[in-house]
């Protein structure tokens, strides 16, 4: 039962993988301190509250709603609007609700090609009649409905106003703990802030000292193509580590595990379009001056959009693919 003296907190998931929910569970013993301080009134993945329970609450009665996942369906959009009304603070939790995340890469396709690809063309699917999901279906006198599947994947703040962002795929337990404490104590930065340091990840990387002032790479390598030296800056080894263009806060977890940063925290506040900024950085990091030599080096980056906008395509200035045709390069 809800305790009226404690601040009420809600968690919700939209187009996401469940990893952000895992981040809450990963608080481990810390979750006891959270449960001590707040009253969780909605958390579909873990607790049996229904949408109608939240609807019945007065507007603004929930102190904080953490929403993870991108917005892809009409149901997710309605839930975002409802939680916006019910909550004093709406927090975009994790890369998908912050920037669009991995589901946001579907903005290289459209509704029809996604449904066709998943329900009819995938090699593992047997669907001779080409049946696609319908929003409404009548059978034996009963009508069943599904939420509408949108053409474009959106970030949470493209649908409702967001107060704060907690970045990461998923956010680290420490970031969540820091955010909960900041909210409970009222020690919050200006509204609209990302609750992580506004510096590049390289500043938290243990390999920073080995990063050369000037990079002159001959080609780019993917992690499986090179025996990684764990003592040397990954970028200087030709790995496309996105640390220089990515916000700190994870304490360089991936470089610590010999994997290049893939940019899940998104850019710092000075960057307007992270993919374009990475094009700039990559263009300065290799040594070639003739068009042929440049093409040869660039061909070692097989999927520039999927690499540079891996977590942020819906939040990019272009937002989605313009025409309706399947993308030639990304489809390969």
């Amino acid at each position, binding site marked *: 039962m809800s305790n009226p003296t404690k601040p009420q907190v809600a968690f919700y998931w939209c187009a996401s993988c469940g990893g952000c929910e895992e981040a809450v569970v990963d608080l481990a013993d810390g979750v006891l301190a959270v449960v001590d301080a707040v009253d969780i009134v909605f958390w579909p993945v873990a607790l049996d509250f229904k949408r109608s329970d939240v609807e019945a609450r007065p507007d603004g009665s929930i102190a904080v709603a953490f929403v993870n996942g991108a917005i892809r369906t009409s149901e997710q959009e309605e839930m975002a609007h409802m939680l916006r009304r019910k909550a004093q603070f709406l927090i975009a939790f994790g890369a998908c609700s912050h920037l669009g995340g991995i589901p946001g890469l579907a903005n*290289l396709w459209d509704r029809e090609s996604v449904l066709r690809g998943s329900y009819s063309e995938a090699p593992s699917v047997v669907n001779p009649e080409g049946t696609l999901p319908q929003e409404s279906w009548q059978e034996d006198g009963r009508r069943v409905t599904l939420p509408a599947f949108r053409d474009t994947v959106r970030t949470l703040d493209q649908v409702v106003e967001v107060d704060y962002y907690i970045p990461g795929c998923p956010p680290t337990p420490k970031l969540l703990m820091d955010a909960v404490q900041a909210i409970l104590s009222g020690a919050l930065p200006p509204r609209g802030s990302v609750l992580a340091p506004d510096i590049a990840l390289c500043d938290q990387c243990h390999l920073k000292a080995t990063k050369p002032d000037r990079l002159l790479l001959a080609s780019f390598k993917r992690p499986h193509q090179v025996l990684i030296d764990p003592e040397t800056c990954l970028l200087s080894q030709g790995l496309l580590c996105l640390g220089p263009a990515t916000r700190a806060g994870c304490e360089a977890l991936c470089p610590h595990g010999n994997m290049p940063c893939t940019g899940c925290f998104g850019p710092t506040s000075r960057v307007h379009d992270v993919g374009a900024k990475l094009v700039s950085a990559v263009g300065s990091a290799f040594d070639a001056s003739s068009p042929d030599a440049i093409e040869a080096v660039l061909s070692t980056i097989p999927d*520039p959009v999927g690499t540079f906008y891996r977590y942020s395509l819906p939040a990019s200035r272009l937002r989605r693919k313009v025409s309706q045709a399947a993308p030639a*390069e990304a489809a390969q």
Partner: protein
Amino acid sequence: MEEQRVGTVNGQEPTIVAFFCTWCTYTAADLAGTSRMKYPPNVRIIRVMCSGRVDPQFVVEAFAQGADGVLIGGCHPGDCHYVEGNYKALRRIALLKRVLRTMGIEDERLRLEWISASEGDKVARVISEMVGAVRRLGRLDLPAKRRGWDAEVLPHGGPTEALAAAAAPDGR
């Protein structure tokens, strides 16, 4: 920002945003003007110190705000005032074109040209060619496309005024 439009001659004419390096191509555009050469009025020239100063974010922003094409003019290879800025531009634009192609923006909408200070005629020719090519492709007009994409969702939702005031930390 979102709804700003790069000026158009009329609703249907394509707009080209041009970034010209001050040492070569901008001087050449001046020469084209003082020599009374003619080129289509669809281009909006922005002077930059070097083609290497053109951050790919500028190009993406120009498209996002409604440009139908982006032209970058720099010094010929070997002539860069800053030694290698134009090579940097060459590498960046090659990569940016691949990004834009995947995003459905045709190659002809982004053009990089080397135009020295004495080549006023080349400024006029390149602008005429590019306006023709973009006109054949049709308008890109991303602001209008964004409005179309957003027709499928509810109006953007914010907190009620009382909630917004309650949520704002003191003094902000």
